[in-house]
């Protein structure tokens, strides 16, 4: 009999970083799979997810927020919401967690050679985008420019803040055509960057669709308007990518609940090009 | 040899009377059987009988609910409301074949340390006679 796909493996939490202090708390966990064979087999690609869990509590599907170029650990940014994520937030560095995966499809990086990459993220939606951002930064020679457009409700809700600030201010990256455009929804003292929702920031920045790929992830309503604005800026359906999320239990296309049209988000997603997404009857 | 039956008894004690009463039992060195596991609630009136069912489901052989004497509730009428609910729930338990004696109620004030120890003794004896609750074993 083949391997049991429901059997999770143990992984150790190396470090934990609290990303946000706003209404919704997000922590980023760096984990290392204990079993060496499984660790070597766990070869993810940007865009993929994995099932994190605690035995006796349950499992949750979480995007992998680090790039495969990082061989040291895997990053997961977890927002404290339900039973499982709340329990994960209780854990400390050195504790054990369970993992199985990686699941789902990934960004078609082979097709994006030498293209300009634009990521448009909102809130926790930056997590899956972080895997591609890190990948592009690590393999800069394979891509053109990189524009990171990211916003959250308040500064307290911005994920990966220091990373973004560093990249933003780095002359090294500026010379290599890497630009960061942060925004918050409501004005705050000391904030000198854009104030307003992410789709508006996108319209203001007017990235060129030429030789570009735009990837967006965030709340459903943000995705909707980002896509609308991208189309208005002249992006073609094939140039727009998004990652979806739905409630998931099995992660392997059997338990049924995450379908969008005839696709299971866990297995056939989470990455959808707008060309594919727009033909689906219901959009998550 | 058959292992001696040592019942699990779950107690929900109201903060203002019975929990203080149980405390007094301890400080006054009155003895009572160690089978009782107490949970403090603010008032017996906040007890949902589902908590009783859950206690049975998770291994209790008997449940005790104890609060202030009638008319002495810190919240005026919480214990009266509890009495109604528990009365009805006992009847329901009996109707599905669970001995209602497994769900006991008592009024113990903060000064009745002796009474609390007697209540626990008596209930423990009762549950011992009834034997383990097997209804929720599966």
């Amino acid at each position, binding site marked *: 009999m083949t391997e049991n796909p429901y059997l999770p493996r143990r992984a150790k939490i190396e470090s934990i970083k609290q990303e946000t202090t706003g209404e919704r708390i997000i922590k980023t966990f760096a984990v290392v799979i204990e079993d060496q064979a499984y660790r070597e087999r766990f070869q993810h690609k940007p865009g993929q997810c994995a099932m994190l869990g605690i035995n006796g509590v349950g499992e949750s599907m979480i995007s992998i927020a680090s790039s495969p170029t990082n061989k040291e650990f895997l990053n997961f940014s977890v927002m404290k919401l*339900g*039973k499982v994520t*709340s329990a994960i937030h209780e854990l400390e560095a050195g504790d054990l967690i369970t993992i199985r995966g990686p699941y789902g499809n990934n960004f078609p990086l082979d097709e994006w050679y030498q293209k300009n990459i634009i990521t448009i993220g909102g809130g926790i939606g930056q997590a899956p985008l972080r895997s591609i951002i890190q990948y592009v930064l690590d393999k800069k020679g394979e891509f053109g420019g990189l524009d990171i457009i990211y916003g959250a409700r308040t500064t307290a809700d911005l994920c990966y803040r220091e990373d973004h600030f560093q990249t933003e201010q780095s002359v090294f990256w500026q010379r290599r055509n890497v630009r960061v455009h942060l925004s918050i929804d409501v004005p705050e003292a000391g904030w000198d960057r854009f104030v307003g929702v992410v789709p508006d920031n996108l319209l203001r920045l007017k990235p060129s669709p030429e030789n570009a790929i735009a990837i967006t992830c965030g709340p459903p309503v943000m995705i909707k308007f980002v896509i609308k604005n991208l189309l208005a800026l002249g992006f073609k359906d094939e140039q727009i990518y998004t990652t979806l999320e739905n409630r998931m239990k099995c992660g392997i296309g059997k338990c049924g609940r995450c379908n969008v049209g005839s696709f299971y988000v866990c297995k056939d997603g989470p990455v959808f090009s707008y060309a594919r997404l727009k033909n689906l009857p219901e959009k998550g | 040899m058959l292992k001696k039956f040592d019942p699990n008894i779950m107690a929900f004690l109201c903060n203002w009377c019975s929990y203080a009463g149980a405390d007094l039992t301890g400080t006054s060195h009155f003895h009572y059987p160690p089978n009782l596991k107490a949970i403090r609630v603010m008032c017996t009136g906040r007890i949902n*009988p*589902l908590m009783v*069912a*859950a206690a049975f*489901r998770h291994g209790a052989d008997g449940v005790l609910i104890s609060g202030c004497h*009638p*008319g002495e509730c810190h919240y005026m*009428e919480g214990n*009266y*409301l509890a*009495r*109604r*609910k528990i*009365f*009805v*729930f*006992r*009847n*329901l*338990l*009996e*109707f*599905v*074949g*669970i*001995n*209602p004696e497994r769900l*006991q*109620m*008592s*009024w*113990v004030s903060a000064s009745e340390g002796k*009474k609390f120890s007697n*209540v626990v003794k*008596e*209930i423990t004896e009762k549950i011992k006679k009834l034997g383990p609750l097997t*209804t*929720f*074993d*599966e």
Partner: protein
Amino acid sequence: MDKEKLVNEAKAVFSREDVACLIGYGKDSIGFRVSPIFIRTRDEADQLFFSPLCSLSLVNYLTLEKGVLLEGNKETGGEKIAIVARGCDSRALIQLFAERGIPREQVVILGVPCRGTIDLKKIEGKFPDARNCTEVTEAEGMYYIRFDNESHEVPKEELLADHCKHCAFPNPLVYDVLLEDLVDSKGAAYSDIEEMEKMALEERHEYWKDKFARCLRCYACRNACPLCYCDDCILERVSPQWVNRSVNLSENLMFHLARSYHLAGRCAGCGECERVCPVNLPLMLLNRKLEKDIKNIFEYTAGSNLDDKPLFASFNPKDPNDFIF
């Protein structure tokens, strides 16, 4: 019942009142089946009918999906909901008015004095091949049934739904229009419950074990119940999780204890839980046992009076106390 009278009264309601939707009974395409129908215009009222086959309660549609029907009809601008209600339904409505704060004047009640309804499982069991039932009427303890090209007479007792046999409230207790003359009420009967109470504890436990082991936990009993309307049901919560999702005897027993207890002093006696159960659990026995005790001890009958306080929100210093140390 006279269909013409029902249809005319329904149309009159549409003319007189600002009605967004009328919930009534319509004949279904197959066999003896009756469906809830939602009438939105005066002309559609011709589809309405009532017969002893109308065993389902329509009251739960008032609260489904946070009372989507009560939000009114945006197209016609109507605001009120009209509903065809039997005695038990009127009790459920009274409970809803009290518990949910649904304004009485927002619901137009077409009251039907009810002589008891037919258990679909029984009549389908007797005539499994019936395709198109044209008529069921009742006279002097007999049902006169016509379907396809056949006509039959069946003693009422044989087909009557079990919970209807014990009904103490055949007449609507609250209504705006009364569709027929009131019928005689027998008063509540609990002989079957008393029989069960005589059984030994273990015997009764065996009886219920056998039943609960069958439960599929499909939640139909809860969803069909006009008084199970919580948006966030305690039976489904995961944190804290009172009832696990596992389907086994223990969890099923937990489920049914919680379900029936939550209806204590609230059950309107419509029998929906029992009617919809795909595995024939006698759930009304539990509800009626509590109804009987509550009536005898606390002199309280759910849904009998618009001004009553809920059973568990009230007390009497003289409530039973002898079970307490």
